[in-house]
């Protein structure tokens, strides 16, 4: 598993992926590899805990757009929590918040997704 992925766990049939470090193309691909494998296994809800990711680039975030697209095919959902303000702003500018949800906490995210 990539060092960018700090942990994965499941709660309420939601796959929760905790990241650590720079969300660049490699980080994005590490997330997508887990999501696509889990989608094949029948899971359709994902949360990304980004507490450890203070820096992103648009290439890494673009891979999240690819995951959103893939999830639309299976009526799935993805959300994020513990975002640094600049990460949340970047998601907003790129429009991710139109197709996925930013939550404040894991508790809120697990309850709402």
């Amino acid at each position, binding site marked *: 598993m990539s060092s960018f992925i700090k942990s994965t766990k499941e709660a309420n049939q939601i796959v929760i992926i905790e990241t650590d470090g720079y969300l660049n193309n490699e980080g994005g691909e590490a997330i997508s590899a887990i999501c696509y494998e889990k989608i094949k296994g029948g899971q359709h809800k994902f949360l990304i805990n980004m507490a450890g990711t203070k820096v992103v*680039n648009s*290439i890494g*975030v673009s891979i999240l757009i690819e995951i959103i697209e893939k999830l639309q095919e299976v009526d799935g959902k993805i959300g994020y929590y513990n975002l640094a303000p*600049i990460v949340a*702003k*970047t998601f907003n*500018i*790129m*429009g991710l918040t*139109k197709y996925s949800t930013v939550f404040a906490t894991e508790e809120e995210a697990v309850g709402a997704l």
Partner: protein
Amino acid sequence: MKKPSVELKLPILPNMELIATQTAEVIARHMNLTDDQSGEISMALIEACINAFEHSKTDSNVFIHFLIEEDSLVMKVIDQGIGFDKTKVEIPKIENKIGKEERKRGWGLQLIQELMDSVEFESNSDGTTVTMKKNIKH
């Protein structure tokens, strides 16, 4: 008195943009910028560096100049690549990317323009200079 400046020379190697952001963070602290301002400067810098690395189509180094002014921070990202025509760069919209064949990337210029107070592009066949300015509200 000459305004303080910092200059970096970055080779085109993976993740070298993070050297630029680390420098920007030090400068932001020196200028007493807020965390939000610092984050916006770093994000814009990352995108400008990635554009220079990916699109300049050269092995030459990328130069970054930070110009510390009383009421603003000016950052110049300079490459010696083939240049580009900004008028041919489409404004990306996620609606045009989701569920479509269009590639998901191509957000760099949009992010830079949203995050900075002013952005200027000078580009020709000898290279591109992106000049980004953040006004400082103390």
